């Protein structure tokens, strides 16, 4: 069955912040994709993945798509489970991979 993906979208003056929680796989990546594609290219999209337990190439693809099209910042603390995954795919080359947000 499909995992429901918890997405919390907050529009800030400077950016749009999506807080993800749960697992992102091929079954529910479409939700993510849809939400992400709505953010304008010029707007900074901040995706907080600290609560994400599973992220594979499906979800990574969405991030890369976004990173190629517009501004993207992925927030993953050093202790975050999928931090290593993000490092392995070198998302930091196209987007900003940060440990935390300034006001966290």
């Amino acid at each position: 069955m499909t995992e429901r993906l918890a997405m919390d979208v907050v529009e800030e003056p400077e950016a749009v912040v999506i807080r993800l929680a749960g697992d992102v796989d091929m079954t529910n990546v479409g939700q993510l994709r849809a939400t992400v594609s709505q953010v304008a290219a010029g707007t900074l999209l901040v995706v907080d993945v600290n609560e994400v337990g599973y992220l594979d190439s499906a979800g990574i693809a969405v991030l890369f798509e976004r990173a190629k099209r517009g501004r993207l910042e992925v927030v993953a603390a050093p202790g975050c489970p999928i931090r290593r995954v993000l490092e392995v795919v070198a998302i930091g080359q196209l987007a900003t991979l940060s440990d935390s947000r300034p006001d966290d």
Partner: protein
Amino acid sequence: MSQDRGPLEPANDALGPHYAYAGPAPAPARPGEGAGATLGGPAAGAEGGQGTSRPSAGSGSVAEVMAGWDWASTPVGPAQGWPATLRTMVQVVLASRFPMWMGWGPELTFFYNDAYRRDTLGVKHPWALGRPAREVWAEIWPDLEPRVAAVMESGSATWDQALLLYLQRSGYREETYHTFSYSPVPGPDGAPEGLLCVVTEETGRVIGERRMTTLRQLASELSGTRTEAEVFAAVRSRLSQNRRDLPFTLVYAYDAEGRASLVSSTGLQLPHPAAPEQIGPGATEAAWPAGVMRSEPRLLVVDDLRRRFGQLPAGACDEPPSAAAVVPLAGRGEGPSGFLVAGLNPYRAFDSQYEGFLELLAGQVAAGLASARAYDAERRRAESLAELDRAKTEFFSNVSHEFRTPLTLILGPVEDSLNDNVDPLPSAQVARLEVVRRNARRLRRLVNDMLDFARIEGGRLQAETVPTDLDALTRDVVASFAPAIEQADLGLEVECAALPRPVVVDPDMWEKIVLNLLSNALKFTLEGTIRVSLTDGGDHVCLSVSDTGVGVPANQLPLLFQRFHRAPLSAARSHEGTGIGLALVHELARLHGGTAGVQSTEGEGSNFWVRLPYGERGTGTAVPQRDSARQAYLDEALQWGPATEVAPEDFASARTAEATVLVVDDNPDMRAHLARLMSPYWRVVLAKDGEHALALARVQRPDLVLTDVMMPGLDGFGLLEALRADRETATVPVIFLSARAGEEAAVEGLEAGADDYLVKPFSAVELLARVRSNLELARLRNRDAAWRAALVESLSEGVAVMGPSGTVTEVNAAFSQVLGYGSDGLPYEMPYPWFPDPVCEPEDHARMLAVMGTALRHGRCGGVVPARHRDGRRIHLEVSVVSVDDEDERRFVMAVRDVTADLLATEREAALARFGMRLAEAGDVRQVQEVGLDELGRLFGADAHLEWHAAVPGAGPSAAVGAGESQRTGAEAMDAARETGRVVLIPGAEAVFGPDEQWYTGMAAPLEPAAHDGAVWLSFATLRRVSLEDRALFGLLSGYLGQAMRRAQLFDDSKAVATALQRSILGPQETPAAVAVHYAPAVRPLEVGGDWYDVVELPDGRLGLVVGDCVGRGLQAATVMGQLRSACRALLLQMSSPAQVLSALDTFAERVPGAACTTVFCGVLDPRDDSLRFCSAGHLPAALVSFDGAAKLLNHNQSLPLGVLPGTQRSEAAEQVAPGALLVVYTDGLVERRGETIDVGIGRLVDAVREARALTPRALTLYLTRLLVPDDAQKDDVALVVYRQPGEVAAARFAVTVEAVPRELAGLRRQLCAWLHQHGVDGQSATELLVACGEACSNAVEHAYPAGAPGQLVVEGEIEPGRVRLRVSDTGRWRVPAQRGEDRGRGLQIMRGLTSRAEVVGTGDGTTVDLVKELLVD
């Protein structure tokens, strides 16, 4: 065709009767008919002349006209019938260029030629052709007829020269003169048939001559005239001579108001209405246009005389003039002086010649009039001058008489007093009275001279002459004057040779002559000789007095003998004198019938001479010499004494007052008098003229100058000016003493700058009072100024005073010290010389300008500005400017202080402080180097590089020096600096900016001058100057840097030593593969603490594990620890029983201070039987966790820590350690936390071990320490040993098969996750495995069974100690995705990145993904 020849009709107009041809023009004859055939020439149309003047030039020639003329109607008949003589004659006449006419036949038919027509016939051509002669010249036929008759009858020719004939040929009755001859033309029979007239007109010549005569005679007569009356008489007489051209004339003269008065008339009988006596200036109905003449002077013709005045006298003609010309007489200055009215000859046209004549006439009259007037003015002036002269003489004469009485009354008593032997006077009074007597005598002499002169003027003085032995007398007189010449240091030569006979002279007068000349010679000769000679000149004697004096300028020579004339001579002994001396000499000479004169060359000398005739008879009687003037002259001359004065010390010694008064007067008596007056009060210095005074003033600096005004050479005014012009004497008060009385003179003196003005004679009291008050005033003024100046000078700050435009006018000593510019260079204009150079230092220059500009504008400014000392140094000034209003001027006071040293010192201090601070913050050598170079670079605006050959390896790598030229230079400079131990400058190759200034690209300094081991090189960003201070600072800072680096080096070294030392007491870093250790001391930066671990390889493959915890932490505990550890190791190697080891350690611990209460765990693992024998001395229980997750705390045999009860036997326990099981030994630093019991912490540890029991020992230690001891929370030392029992152990297994559809993925993941956790795979590793596996599963789901029929997905797993394997397999097809360009390619990247090994094997039957992950933690 016949010509209609109408009669000529006379016309009348203003010019008189004249003729106009009134008929039609004669028509041309038919060809062949006219006279053309006879006369030749083309038939030409004759044009009738019609006009009132001469024939028009356009008409054809006479020959042409004649050719076309109708001769048939004339008495001569047609041309064909003419007799040969006539024809010949006609041809002769026509051909001649001389005017001719010919009459032929009884009628004397008129023929003529072109010349005649042109000159004489005028308007009558062509009417006259063929007419009878008497008709042609009807107007003069009465004159002509007799002549004609004479010729025709007698056959003899006539001759008339310049015969006056009134011709009607120009349209009016014209006065003409002709010279002509009538001669007969014989006919065939010899009798005169015709008359030939050859004629020349003489009109022009005659009239011209007439007029010229008038002018000439008038001119000559006028030249002899003086007065106006004479002028007019001449005018009258001359003008009346020419009645033809000037029938009448009138001359009017203007007076000052513009009224014209008649001054001369000719040709009219007065009174006559045409000649009113006076014409007022405004008269409009005047007879003549006087007003117009005056305002717009030009020649006017008034042509209605008859209307105005009726009939006028006719003059020489029959007709009265009908017109007159009015010509202005040019005067001197503006406007004409009058005008001339000239009636015009009615028989002449008023042509340009006539006009010219009248103008010349008027000019002469005007000139004559003008000169008459000038003469008149001159005469009147001479008269008034003479009048003035007479009045002067009379005045003097009167006044002089008045003088004599008082003089007598002065001299008399004075003489008496001086000669009084009975009651003689005290010497002071005698001196005074002598002065009185001398001056009284002088006065008397002057008076006498003037009276003499007056008498001569009035003719009342007679010479009483007697025959005199003139040479003796002369010698006598000269001798009596000699003393004065001697006193003046002049030579005297006398050449009075004996004369042949006596001279008849008035001896007194002769005396006077000689004395006067001698006196003059002495007065005007400052050095040289005076020569007197008396010579015989035949009928006269000649006295000559010559000198080598100043001479007389050439332009003064003629004036010398004039009365009252005083030549303005530049140098003389005295400026006194009335100026009548020479005039007197001249007059006296003249009275004797002689003459006086002078020769002189300016600068060389003069020679005055007097010539007297010997004379015949005396008029006087020989009288004894009267009271002679000799004494008076001598006395006066003696007064002009020598240059050396009566010694001033006579007057100087008496006084004690401080002030010095300089007295200037050319009169010695006056000097002495003034000196005597003032010396009781002040020091008196005397000068005899302006030059002398000026020199004295400069040297002696008098407090007051009292000066006469009239002096030879530099007079009072000149002296004043000179004194004021010199700064040194500009403020000295000057009092004028002058004989010129009156307000004007005083004002003039005061305006010239004198402080006071006294008039001679003055009262002594007044003089003293004025001198005193002026001195006082001056003293007050000076005191203030002196005080102010002293104050300013005393300031230690440089002070300058500036005018409104900023020009520096005053500076004090301190100022010139600061800037090098002193008061000798004043004034200093903006921009001041100490401004920075605008070219080389534009910013500095601008700054200085800005500061000064603000100061001048706002009256106040201050700041620190750069400037240039005179010697070229760059200095910094603290400048403060304030404005001061001085009366109506705004001035500024500027204070300057040299703050260069302060500024530089401050800068250097700051630089040093900052540098030191930054260096202090730096840690090791590398940091020190970085900081040091950065700071140096910043300070000097350069790139800093460093080279250091340090002995310690790994310390301070030298930064790479830039490539190329700069590199070599930099390296060279650093080498040089290092070797010499000095700062080395690298000069720039570009142009030098200023003299003595070098600009540099960089500089290098040694790091430690003594060590010669390193250098710093600065490469400047731009070419710049390097001052001494810069260099010093750089050297200093480089030294600091070197020291800091050395210190850091030492620190690093000692730290390395300490580290090494510490490491040496620690347990081994390298452990067998089954063992992993972690050690972290509590106290940083120590590497050791109170805890320890040890791993000891024992014989028989046994392994000893020790973990201990000494009391305390830090170095103290570490020293104890080290000993205990070593002891324990030694003991372990010795004894195989842990209990024995610890017991022995007890004993040892007793002897080591601080070792008591140390807890220890000591265990020995034996691989032969998988046993663990251990003993604990109060230590926390070790944890034993088997691979399947069972955990146990090894609590047995707790006993007391070391040294507490030494000698107590310890026991040991044993435990089985299965393969794959983990033994974890630790210290309390790992588990103890505030606020909880130790058991909680231990429990936490055990849980953590269980959770991650699949990890390798190494990974586990990292996992445990990360989890349990975050860096910032470590309070205690931590030691941890993890051991896994080697050997085969059953792996945990997993196998799940699901449908290869997306919905199965989550569940699969959950299952896998649970299995991993259950079997001791830590969270992070588990996540990574899940993602990798999940990736493989997703792949299979997505791609394995595309055809729609889903297949199966199998996931299998295996966990071994330290490793997890997973296999994902399907039985479908799986395209291996491309690595690049596709997102899916990431799948493999992810799998490979998260595991140790990922292999995808695809066959036709399916795909298998094998994942292996070593459980390491990094």
